[in-house]
């Protein structure tokens, strides 16, 4: 660790500088702002107050928004997990040639702009959209399904965007799975169900949890999907923060909401880390 080493010094200086200026400082400023008072003319007044936080906890409306966002994120996560796990499983079992193709086919939509995809969703789910057209002409329904601007539309859109985030970490873990263990279990007479619950699930748990985190966290913030597909009827945490900053001009409240959100995420991530450590210690 020669301190005189110039290259090393420059590198450390650069990365520290960047992270402190653009990483730590903004978050710190956010924390500070959450304790200030709102000033309609000048954005914020420098008087310390807990008003923003108390507002969040006292007014029932905000808690409702928060629970709604969590519910949506959770539902999306479970949907992605349920429908995405088979993808990871089947793909891991394929021959390498098919594997790459399957993954590429999964990724191409991902590399397409998410707004464009959400817009496409609108065309599919509308009353005169493709989905209704197909169902009507197949005779499966008689009047068009009203999906647009409901929670189902939002869910469909979020699932569409988030699926790859679940599949990729899952796949990474499933691929490393020792399939001989599965076959051994089957040889020993275990049914498909117990094979899954006793062998496959526990061994792929890290991937499952990684996938869940990778879906849950962004979904808490993806409010524009909800406003494009859900009709701005049901406000989510992201909408709330955006409104506080852009419409209502209440920066302290917006900052406070964000801080609470960060704390919530941090708690979840720490929980994930702890569970992971506990789990890997339990394994032989």
């Amino acid at each position, binding site marked *: 660790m020669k301190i005189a080493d110039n290259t090393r010094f420059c590198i450390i200086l650069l990365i520290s500088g960047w992270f402190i200026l653009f990483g730590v400082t903004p978050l710190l400023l956010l924390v500070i702002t959450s304790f200030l008072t709102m000033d309609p*003319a000048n*954005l914020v007044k420098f008087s310390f107050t807990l008003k923003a936080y108390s507002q969040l906890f006292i007014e*029932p*409306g*905000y808690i*409702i*928004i928060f629970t709604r966002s969590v519910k949506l994120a959770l539902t999306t996560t479970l949907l992605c997990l349920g429908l995405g796990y088979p993808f990871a499983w089947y793909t891991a079992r394929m021959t390498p040639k098919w594997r790459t193709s399957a993954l590429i086919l999964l990724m191409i939509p991902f590399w397409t702009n998410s707004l464009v995809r959400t817009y496409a969703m609108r065309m599919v789910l*509308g*009353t*005169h959209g493709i989905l209704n057209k197909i169902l009507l002409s197949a005779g499966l329904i008689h009047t*068009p399904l*009203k999906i*647009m*601007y409901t929670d189902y539309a939002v869910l469909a859109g979020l699932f569409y965007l988030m699926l790859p985030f679940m599949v990729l970490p899952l796949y990474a873990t499933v691929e490393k799975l020792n399939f001989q263990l599965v076959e051994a279990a089957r040889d020993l007479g275990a049914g498909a169900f117990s094979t899954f619950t006793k062998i496959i699930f526990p061994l792929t748990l890290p991937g499952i949890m990684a996938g869940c985190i990778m879906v849950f966290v962004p979904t808490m913030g993806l409010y524009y999907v909800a406003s494009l597909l*859900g*009709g*701005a*009827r*049901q*406000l989510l945490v992201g909408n*709330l923060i955006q409104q506080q*900053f*852009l*419409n*209502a*001009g209440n920066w302290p409240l917006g900052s406070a909401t964000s801080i609470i959100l960060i704390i919530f995420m941090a708690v979840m991530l720490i929980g994930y880390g702890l569970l992971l450590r506990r789990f890997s210690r339990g394994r032989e």
Partner: protein
Amino acid sequence: MKPLFKALIILAVVLLAAIQTQAAEKIYVYNWTEYLPESVLAQFTKETGIQVVYATYDSNETMYAKLKLIKKDGYDVVVPSTYFVSKMGREGMLMKLDQALLPNMKHLDPELLNKDYDPDNNYSIPYMWGSTGIAVNTDEIPKAQITSWKDLWKPEFKGKLLLQDDLREVFHMALRIKGFSGNTTDPKEIEQAYLLLKDLMPNVLLFNSDSPRLPFLAGEVSIGMIWNGEAWMAQEENPAIQYVYPEEGASFWVDSFVIPKGARNPKGAHAFINFMMTPEVAKACVEEYGYPTPVKPAIALLDSNISGSRTIFPAAKVIQQGEFQNDVGQAIEIYQKYWEKLRTGD
């Protein structure tokens, strides 16, 4: 070292391409969505050589917040509604207009000048005005059934209603039903309106101020609150969609051109505003969007089916029945408080 060098060169070239500003003169216009035809902008550039960089917003509040963040090198022309003109004028956010640079003011209807929100038109020039009423898809709902704001509360419309994402207009509805003014500052009256609106919420399918006619055209909603121009545009595509002036009174508004204090090119901005007041230009705007114009000579240039349309140009009686939006000063905070409650609850 070589690949690093190459990367840096590419980066430098790209950065140069980015920073290089075009030689042409520009103005930055910030306006409501669906409110200015591209052809008009192109015409302006042709006549003056000034390029227009155009951005849009869907609510006064968003526009106001954006303007507060950009102190200099900001937008040159913005189009707020009446009560925001007075608010922004009070807060010193607007530049005083140089009426010497606006000779086309002579074309404007004197009825729309010198109003309370901007006496002497120090800050604003009216661009378009209009009303907010009810749109009905008569294929689904007979027009005769819809005559009043109260009809929106009917239980058979549960989950079928479209509302504008605008707190003043939504409250206007409820206030007029209760017999109060849409511009009231009395907290008790506003609270009563709020309680009435709470009952309406289950009927609402969505809030939309970007382009309220689209859900109608797509068949997602068949009744709702809408601006008259949007209704007229919808009617052009689907004649079944009709506009109703509610008996309690529609809300009338005026959107005006203003020049924010941080404008880069005030001269260009004045040229633009003056251009927008030429009769041919105003005519094009009416034809495209269906909103009435304050430029009197333009009306004579219109086709009779447009100048005669009651959706675009309401009868004097209807205007009297209705009410023009005005500033409510500090009371806006009361409205905001209840609006938030409405939007976050449920």
